[in-house]
Every structure is written in structure tokens, then in C-alpha cells.
């Protein structure tokens, strides 16, 4: 085999290995969740959202190149008090009928540190809530679990990517009751994302 034939072959092989994997975050187990907390005088308002979907491109050889978009269905936001839930979904707060999705589209990672299968970084991207989009940088922790998909879904082979992120947003930045009810509901919202995506190998 001539050298001119080997070089393209090597390039192709490298390209295949370097290709990022696509992880789908629609969890068949329904475990993925986003937790939110708002302080309030009597007790904090704690709830969660389970309607999570989206895809992330992750290359285990180059975690710094990770990009992707995570979508949370606004309708899936739940709190244990039915009246609070009605208010939360209503037109005065999240208006879930008009704004059915909350999204974060990660465009770049900075301060990337990888140890074993765990990568920590600051992800910068566009966070969209209540129809308002803002550029945010949030600390993320990515855990790559090679060949672990079959441990969760027995008839599928592939890898898992677990993403964890904790960050704080200000509801006023997203035009949610701007300047209103600050004595009753904190303007800041603590968010905590714990999600796992699957990349199926054929």
C-alpha cells in the first residue's frame, strides 16, 4: 500500500475517533429533573420539572468542545401546593400556555478540567425563560459513563452522559413579575439540573 493511500485512511480513522457523540436527554426512565427553589416568608417554594429533552454533542477525547441544547417543558413544573402550581403556570407568572419551553443552549465551555470520566467547566450559552433570552455562564459537571446504557436500558448498548448544574437566576431578568411581590416571593430562583443522556451505539 502506497503512503498516499495510507494518509487519507489514517485521517479518516482519526476523524471517526474524534467525532463527538450525540446524547439524547429524553429519559425513558423519567429520572431526569430540574429542581427550583424560591424563598418565601412562610416556607420556601420547592418544585421540580420532569419534562426534559434535548441533545448534547460530547466528545470524550475533547470535552471542551461540548455543545448542546436542553429543553424543559414549562407544563411539567410541579409544586406540591395546587394553588401555587396554578399561579406558577398562570399568565402572571410563567404563562406556560404562551411559553411552553424553558431552554439552555450551550455554545462553549471554559475552565475545562477533566479527571478520569468527570469534567467540570463553565458553560456559556443562551438561557430562555418566559420568552426572554439571556446569555448565562453556569458551572457544569459532566460525567461520561462508557458502555453503561445497557445497565439502565437492558436491550440498548451505548454510553451515558450525566450533566449536573447548579445556578441562580433572577426572575426580574426574565420579566416574571418584575418588581412585584418581592416581599412574598424572592426575586432569585435557585436551579439545580440533574440529567442523563444516552448515546446508542449500533
Amino acid at each position: 500500500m502506497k503512503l498516499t493511500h495510507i494518509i487519507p485512511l489514517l485521517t479518516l480513522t482519526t476523524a471517526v475517533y474524534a467525532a463527538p457523540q450525540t446524547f439524547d436527554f429524553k429519559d425513558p426512565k423519567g429520572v431526569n429533573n430540574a429542581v427550583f427553589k424560591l424563598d418565601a416568608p412562610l416556607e420556601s417554594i420547592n418544585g421540580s420539572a420532569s419534562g426534559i429533552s434535548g441533545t448534547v454533542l460530547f466528545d470524550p477525547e475533547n470535552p471542551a468542545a461540548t455543545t448542546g441544547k436542553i429543553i424543559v417543558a414549562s407544563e411539567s413544573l410541579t409544586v406540591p401546593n395546587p394553588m401555587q402550581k396554578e399561579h406558577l403556570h398562570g399568565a402572571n407568572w410563567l404563562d406556560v400556555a404562551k411559553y411552553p419551553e424553558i431552554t439552555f443552549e450551550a455554545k462553549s465551555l471554559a475552565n475545562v478540567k477533566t479527571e478520569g470520566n468527570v469534567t467540570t467547566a463553565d458553560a456559556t450559552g443562551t438561557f430562555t425563560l418566559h420568552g426572554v433570552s439571556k446569555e448565562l455562564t453556569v458551572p457544569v459537571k459532566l460525567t461520561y459513563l462508557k458502555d453503561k446504557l445497557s445497565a439502565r436500558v437492558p436491550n440498548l448498548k451505548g454510553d451515558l452522559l450525566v450533566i449536573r448544574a447548579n445556578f441562580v437566576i433572577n426572575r426580574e431578568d426574565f420579566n416574571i413579575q418584575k418588581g412585584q411581590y418581592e416581599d412574598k416571593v424572592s426575586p432569585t430562583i435557585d436551579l439545580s439540573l440533574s440529567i442523563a443522556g444516552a448515546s446508542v451505539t449500533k
Partner: protein
Amino acid sequence: MKRILQLLAILILLAAGAIWLATGANRGWTKTSVAVKTLDEVTGIEGITYQKKFLPGVDFLGAAFGGAALLAGASLFFRKPKTN
């Protein structure tokens, strides 16, 4: 009638207090479901599901006090039956 309304007011107060204490004396708002966490052993993620459960809070106690006060107040409009 006066006596019946007053007894009813006391009964509502006692029943509400007993229910509130029996369900864990929740000092927050009334809840109709509780979050249940389950650990996914592969990913280490704690999944959250909601189980239907009535957990009366301080608003429940307040409503019971309000109802009892209304009944007790209404009882004042009735005269004590004369005994002689």
C-alpha cells in the same frame, strides 16, 4: 340552636387540630402531594416523583379557625332559651 352552633364550632376546631397534628403538624402551606426521591444507581441521579397525599398546613388551620369563628359569631344571634 345557640348551643348547637357553639358545639359545632368547637368540634371543627378540635377536628382540624387533630387532623393537622396527626398528619405531621406541617407549618407550611397545605399540600396535596409530596415529593418522593428515588436514586438511579447507574447515574447517581435522584429522580423525583409526586405521590398524592393530603398534608394540611397553616392555611387549613386558619380556614378551620375562620369557620369556627363564624359559627360562634352566628350563635350570638340566637337567644338562650328561657328556663322558667
